[in-house]
């Protein structure tokens, strides 16, 4: 047996678990979920690589025939680049707006005690509770009333509003754990609320911000119902709307759909790898005694 590796201290990124059992149990726990995660994902890959549009029912993870034709067709479709760009643009803006607003709101909710605080926290949850189908129409009117139909801004606004509640809850939980003395230090150093927030709180919250950003991004990135509702110009469509048309009411081109889905997921993957480094914890280590 290899020697035991003790519980590693905060800045020890390379420690190893203690003993065989400790090494094994995380795997055992992750196994069923990884399967439930990966099997469908492999299916998607296979369907994307199969030069056919029908649904594939075999359990084999390898396609019988190989081809990139699905990808070519999806990429070659008119407006593909335009819609892909829309998606990226909308998602990026949503991430920005969502993170910005949820970070500020969460910070206010975490640090300040103001009259409607609890009410605000509750109100934020209300949105999450109604079925999307129901909210869609009032949202349509709101966006219309704001003159933002067919505008990227309208979509971004609605997506952020969708993502913000959860992000706020999440970030607030994180902010609550930041040591206040560090902020007090900054106050003593002459920082106003803005400098405090931008230069001290946000940098320390990178792991939570990264999760929040991912969540916001994915909210916007995969959504098609609202996008299809608010956008009545195909040039304004986001890519998921287009993608959904492959399995839309009048068709089911699974091959294209799968290829498109893989294309859609690529940027998220990229984002994940970009953010991965931010997601390591222990950022506050060393700030205060102990």
């Amino acid at each position, binding site marked *: 047996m290899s020697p035991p590796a003790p519980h590693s201290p905060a800045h020890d990124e390379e420690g190893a678990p203690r003993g065989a059992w400790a090494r094994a149990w995380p795997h055992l726990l992750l196994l069923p979920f990884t399967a439930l995660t990966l099997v469908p994902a492999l299916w998607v890959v296979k369907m994307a690589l199969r*030069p*056919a*549009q*029908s*649904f594939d*029912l075999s359990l084999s993870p390898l396609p019988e*025939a190989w081809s990139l*034709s699905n990808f070519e*067709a999806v990429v*070659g*479709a*008119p*407006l593909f680049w335009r819609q892909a760009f829309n998606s990226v643009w909308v998602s990026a803006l949503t991430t920005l707006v969502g993170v910005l607003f949820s970070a500020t709101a969460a910070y206010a909710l975490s640090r300040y005690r103001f009259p409607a605080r609890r009410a605000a926290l509750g109100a934020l949850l209300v949105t999450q509770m109604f079925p999307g*189908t129901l909210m869609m*129409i009032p949202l*349509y*009117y709101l966006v*219309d009333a704001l003159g933002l*139909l*067919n505008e990227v801004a309208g979509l971004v606004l609605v997506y952020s509003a969708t993502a913000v509640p959860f992000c706020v809850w999440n970030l607030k939980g994180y902010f609550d754990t930041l040591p206040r003395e560090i902020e007090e230090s900054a106050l003593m150093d002459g920082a106003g609320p803005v400098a405090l927030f931008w230069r001290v709180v946000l940098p320390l919250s990178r792991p939570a911000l990264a999760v929040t950003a991912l969540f916001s991004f994915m909210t916007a990135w995969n959504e098609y119902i609202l996008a299809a*509702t608010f956008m*009545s*110009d*195909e*040039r304004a469509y986001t890519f998921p709307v287009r993608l959904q*048309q492959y*399995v*839309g*009411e*009048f*068709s*089911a*081109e699974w*091959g*294209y759909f799968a290829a498109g889905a893989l294309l859609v997921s690529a940027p998220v993957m990229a984002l994940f790898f970009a953010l991965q480094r931010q997601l390591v914890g222990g950022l506050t280590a060393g700030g205060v005694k102990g």
Partner: protein
Amino acid sequence: NALGCAPGEAGAPGGAGAGGGGRPPIRLWHAYRGEERAALERAARRFEERTGQAVSTLALPYSAFPNKLQAAAARGNGPDVFIFAHDRLGDWAAAGLVEPLGFWVSADERAALLTPTVEALEHEGNLYGLPLSCKTLALFYHRGLVPAPPSTTDALWAAARGARAAAAAAGATPPWGLAAPELSSLYFHAPWLHAHGGDALDLEGRAGAAVASARYLRARVEEGLVPAEVNGALASELFRGGRLAFLVSGPWLRGDLAGFSDWGVAPLPTLSETGRPLAPYLGVEAVMMSSRARDPAGALALMRALAGEEEARARLAAGQLAARRAPYEEPGALADPWLRAFRAQLERAAPMSGAPAMRAAWTPLQRALSSSVVYGESPEVAFEEARRALAASLRESSLGDSAEGGR
């Protein structure tokens, strides 16, 4: 009529295996709700009583229906019989999910059905279901603004302009002339396209007609008679509020009009420029048989019962457009102006094709209509783009379909 045998007597393998306990129930899936659902269940009970064959019904949310059907049928968990709109028929037929009925359904049996509804259920020469009811578009008019329905478009626009002028004179907000729930959707544009002599599946040969119809509507948009962007709920709200003279919509509008009586309905008028009627698409709700039905004969019997005369009469009585001829011919059947209007409209409706080409046309045309009618860009360019996109996607899907091979 080779299989005209009594339902249930076909000795399906399922029946033999079931031993003493009778045959397994026929599984019937549908997306009905409310009164329609209750009617369907009553019909199923009647069928059970008559034949002793149990029927289990399952109501599904409309939006979850196609995916569930696809997933379940592929795994053999699907229904024996299901009721749904006909527009996906082409795909389902191609995927082998639905059973062709041509062999069983005689010409007489077809003749009892409204012809356009049967046509809608045909795919590549085969019949894939029995029609229950149909939906199409008609012209709703606000009695407070328009005294009588117009029979030509010229009369329609004149009435609309008159209503606007009257309102302006009275110092009120001038109402819109005419609206459809979604102007850029092919479904709502089809009447104009068809009246101009166009066809969604023939953009090459009849491009002129498409361009003309787009230009025609664009002109009304620019005149302020037609709102460019409304959706169903807003349109009916405008209509109820007296801010819209004409609304092109379907039978489903009835719910939205509850508690409001100042409306009338009539068939769509004739396009004055060409003399052709505005011909909307016809949507058919049909009962279909899964290709994996355990007891095809029993299933067929149930389908016949549901599509039968008795049910059709009940449907008609409930204000639905039944798909059989006979009930309409009974005396007093058309006393309801609603039914009268839609029955007349049915005759002028164009059955929507269930072919893959149709589904492929949907997206490019929507794009073309949106840019030309809503945004006023060049219709020539828009439809040329649509044509090219359609041709490309047809090429691709034929490639894909051929690779699908046996299934």
